[in-house]
């Protein structure tokens, strides 16, 4: 098979530009076949070989334009991160860190400080900081949701519902002792966000599942342990063990999922097209 220097250089450039596509070899093979076929046709009609190569590349399109087209996923999303989705990824990472810190605070409080807790002074201050951290975590999660929507190219009502539920979880988090409130709103918002992600086929589904199910799993655990009356009852009639385990499960599971989603939003991990097997 004859080789064409200009076209081979172009294909190398495309290979570099599309290195993030899992179906890279298929894409480049298809471009190669097209460009070589064009050159052969042009040469057969009397064009000089180099001129034919130039014409073929000119007709095929500017590499930057093509890279932008190929950066769209098949459902209209962005296989490559943009400045916004990178920022949304950062918000997801911030949210993951805050929600994990809130979970850790709650566990430390329940295990070590509950018996000595007083609303005056340091106890009140740390509780307020933790509560604000939880609210900021949900605030950051709303930005992450917009990033997920953009990157997956999802339109319609689902992302809006997810965004609204996470938005409502922000004020609910300000009364963080009311676990059923913020966990239910945040959990439903995260679940819908994760369904958007899973349906797109993009990103790591394990992280999407952890994100989507984390808070609801925590709430279910909390409700079950409370119903089963596990552990002692505190002065407010609550079951500290149920809160400890429920918040622990919910916060840490969600944080792991969010961290994975945040990394994906910032990364160049693509692509939604599986490579096609090479014929025997």
């Amino acid at each position, binding site marked *: *098979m004859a080789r064409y220097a200009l076209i081979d250089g172009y294909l190398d450039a495309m290979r570099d530009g599309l290195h993030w596509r899992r179906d890279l070899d*298929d*894409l480049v*093979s*298809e*471009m*190669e*076949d*097209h460009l*070589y*076929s*064009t050159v052969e046709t042009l040469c057969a009609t009397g064009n000089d070989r180099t001129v034919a190569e130039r014409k073929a590349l000119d*007709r*095929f*399109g*500017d590499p930057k*334009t*093509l890279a932008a*087209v*190929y950066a*769209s996923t*098949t*459902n209209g999303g962005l296989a490559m991160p943009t400045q916004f989705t990178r920022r949304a990824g950062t918000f997801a990472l911030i949210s993951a860190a805050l929600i994990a810190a809130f979970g850790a605070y709650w566990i430390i409080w329940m295990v070590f400080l509950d018996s000595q807790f007083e609303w005056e002074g340091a106890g009140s201050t740390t509780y307020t900081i933790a509560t604000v951290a939880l609210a900021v975590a949900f605030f950051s999660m709303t930005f992450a949701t917009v990033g997920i929507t953009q990157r997956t190219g999802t339109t319609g009502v689902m992302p809006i519902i997810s965004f609204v539920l996470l938005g409502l979880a922000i004020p609910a988090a300000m009364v963080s002792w009311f676990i059923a409130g913020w966990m239910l709103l945040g959990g439903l918002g995260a679940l819908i966000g994760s369904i958007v992600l899973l349906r797109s086929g993009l990103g790591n589904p394990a992280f999407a599942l952890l994100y989507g199910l984390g808070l609801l799993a925590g709430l279910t655990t909390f409700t079950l342990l409370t119903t089963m009356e596990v552990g002692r009852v505190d002065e407010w009639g609550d079951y500290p063990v149920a809160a400890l385990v429920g918040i622990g499960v919910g916060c840490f599971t969600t944080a792991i999922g969010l961290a994975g989603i945040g990394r994906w939003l910032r990364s160049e991990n693509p692509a*939604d*097209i599986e490579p*096609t*097997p*090479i*014929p025997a």
Partner: protein
Amino acid sequence: MSGQALKGHLDLLLLAILSDGAKHGYAVIDELRRRSDDAFDLPEGTVYPALHRLEKGGLLTSEWTVVQGRRRRTYRLTDQGRGALGEQRQSWQLFTGAVQSVLRGVTWPDTP
């Protein structure tokens, strides 16, 4: 005519071209150019993502062969694609009929 004018209609054109039988990408684009008499100024490379999208949507299937030492992907319309082509063709005819009626100043569908 700018390739931008094709936006939203490229899928219909590709399905129509493939309704005559399986073709590889170069042949599809060549046929598009021939039938339109070179009317669309479209970077040829941008047609491939559209073919991939149609395949992902189940409207086309593709298979690889080796021709003259090169890997070649050939696209074929599926039954679902044939159905979609019929629907899109009908929608297009309704649309263009209505537009032409407006341009001619007569009430659609009572076009002469």
